[in-house]
């Protein structure tokens, strides 16, 4: 079946990824660990663009870029160099951005995503290196702002800009592309996606195969899907009302969930690129084989291996390999208990509870899930009790083996209490009659008997409830 796209929706994405796992910025030795620090405390003459300063490229940044390019199935260019992209804006103190222009380090790759009807290939046009500009903060609202505050701590951070072809057909596909990209980058350990500004998205959107509109400043994945849904709806409505879509740049207003025309003048796109004279060219072809060899197993390969090695369902394999930490967690569990059972507990149950609470796999230990699975497997607790234990560990802390006891979840215990209640009620016909006649206190006599029979192991309140339930039957 060919996926139908009657509205001719085409989406291309430009994703800026900040390589915050590097120790230093792209062209200087300033630390990348600035997120909790005062403004303008991670800057030097190079990243401030002071006269006479000389940028020198971070070797590891280049290796990271090659690693990313290879993971995205790109070709790595033999010789590359940086260019100056001139534009006048206070987020760049130099008046230009150092970026790669005609020889991006990686080009012509692809990312495979799950489309509406099976796998779809999204072509990656290029992935190039550039420096991040500083951060601007408007004093008050943009409309009534009295000025702009500039913090250059971010200025000079290494960015990889990953540009796709307009191959996505819906906001959902765009979201899947972004999720897959993040997953791959997580595997490569080149960035921490949880840090502010680690991934930023610009999108090109067109409908009915018309002109494309660029939507800028999308700061989250959720935001990307919302921005695209809005923009597609806006364009379709505009065309239906007889309007014409013009080439323009729009800004996504996250708070209101709408895109706004930026009315940028055409002239501003006149960047006057020229080769960066302060940085010499790079010849990196000889590094490619080594980096390729050291590339970790990536999500798609891992998924296939999980299916064949552990015999688990594709759905489970997918859920388990999206995040590298979850994949590693699962493999540890699967080495100790039946892999199929482990897949159900980790992918369906544990991940569900974690997602519900919006926390990561680090909140749980392999040891604890193995304990829970073991208890269920040995028929000591019910599956439902297992889930209850996981919830208790996540919400209140504690160890599963203690929670089992404190909550009286052991099936054996349960049987003992049930039997004691049965006996106590049968042995106390008078007390039962008294209670039913309105003498509430006589219930205590029966509960006391239950406690006696279980040698105090039953929970008194629970015993009381059970006796009550038994009598009123």
């Amino acid at each position, binding site marked *: 079946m060919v996926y139908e796209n009657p509205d001719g929706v085409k989406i291309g994405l430009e994703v800026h990824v900040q390589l915050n796992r590097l120790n*230093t910025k792209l062209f200087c030795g300033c630390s990348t660990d600035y997120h909790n620090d005062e403004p303008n*405390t991670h800057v030097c003459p190079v990243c401030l663009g002071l006269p006479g300063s000389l940028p020198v490229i971070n070797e590891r940044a280049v290796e990271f870029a090659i690693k990313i390019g290879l993971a995205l199935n790109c070709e790595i260019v033999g010789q590359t160099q940086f260019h100056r992209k001139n534009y006048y804006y206070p987020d760049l103190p130099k008046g230009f951005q150092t970026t790669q222009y005609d020889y991006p380090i990686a080009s012509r790759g692809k990312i495979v995503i799950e489309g509406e009807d099976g796998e779809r290939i999204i072509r990656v046009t290029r992935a190039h290196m550039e420096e991040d500009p500083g951060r601007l903060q408007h004093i008050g609202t943009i409309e009534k702002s009295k000025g702009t505050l500039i913090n250059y701590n971010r200025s000079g951070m290494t960015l990889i800009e990953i540009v796709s072809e307009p191959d996505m057909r819906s906001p959902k596909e765009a979201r899947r592309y972004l999720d897959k990209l993040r997953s791959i980058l997580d595997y490569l350990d080149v960035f921490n996606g949880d840090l502010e500004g680690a991934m930023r998205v610009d999108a090109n959107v067109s409908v009915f195969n018309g002109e494309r509109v660029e939507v800028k400043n999308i700061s989250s994945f959720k935001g990307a899907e919302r921005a695209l849904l809005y923009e597609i709806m806006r364009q379709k409505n505009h065309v239906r009302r007889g309007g014409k879509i013009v080439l323009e740049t729009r800004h996504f207003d996250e708070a209101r969930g709408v895109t706004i025309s930026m009315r940028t003048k055409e002239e501003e796109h006149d960047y006057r690129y020229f080769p960066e004279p302060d940085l010499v060219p790079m010849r990196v072809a000889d590094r490619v084989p080594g980096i390729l060899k050291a590339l970790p197993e990536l999500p798609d390969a891992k998924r296939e291996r999980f299916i064949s090695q552990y015999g688990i369902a594709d759905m489970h394999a997918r859920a388990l390999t999206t995040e590298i930490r979850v994949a590693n967690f699962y493999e540890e569990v699967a080495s100790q208990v039946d892999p199929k059972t482990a897949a159900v507990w980790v992918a369906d149950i544990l991940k569900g509870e974690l997602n519900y609470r919006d926390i990561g796999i680090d909140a749980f230990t392999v040891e604890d899930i193995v304990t829970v699975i073991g208890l269920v497997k040995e028929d000591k607790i019910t599956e439902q009790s297992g889930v209850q234990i996981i919830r208790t560990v996540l919400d209140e802390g504690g160890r599963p083996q203690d929670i089992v006891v404190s909550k009286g979840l052991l099936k054996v215990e349960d049987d003992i209490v049930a039997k004691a209640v049965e006996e106590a009620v049968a042995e106390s016909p008078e007390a039962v009659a008294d209670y039913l006649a309105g003498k509430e206190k006589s219930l205590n006599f029966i509960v006391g008997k239950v406690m006696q029979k279980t040698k105090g192991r039953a929970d008194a309140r629970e015993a009381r409830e059970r006796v009550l339930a038994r009598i009123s039957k």
Partner: protein
Amino acid sequence: MITKEKVGHIGWLARIEIEEKESDAYAEKLNSVLDYFGQLDEVDTQGVAPTYHVMDIVNVFRKDEVRESMPQDVVLANTGHKQEGNFKAPRIM
């Protein structure tokens, strides 16, 4: 060919105010530079490898090792436009 209008545009991009009477002079000078490049274009460069950079060296790298940054007060020392550790610019649309 660089016209007076082009000079104005280039000036706008560079945020340089160019007065009407200066435009003609700049256009003339820039055109003579362009002429010179036109002459260079006529040179036969068949079989000559392109020069990526004026210096014939490649791969000058730096290890990913942290060096001390500048103290905030030094960073902001040369500007009167500052607020709470930030540089302060006029309102940006």
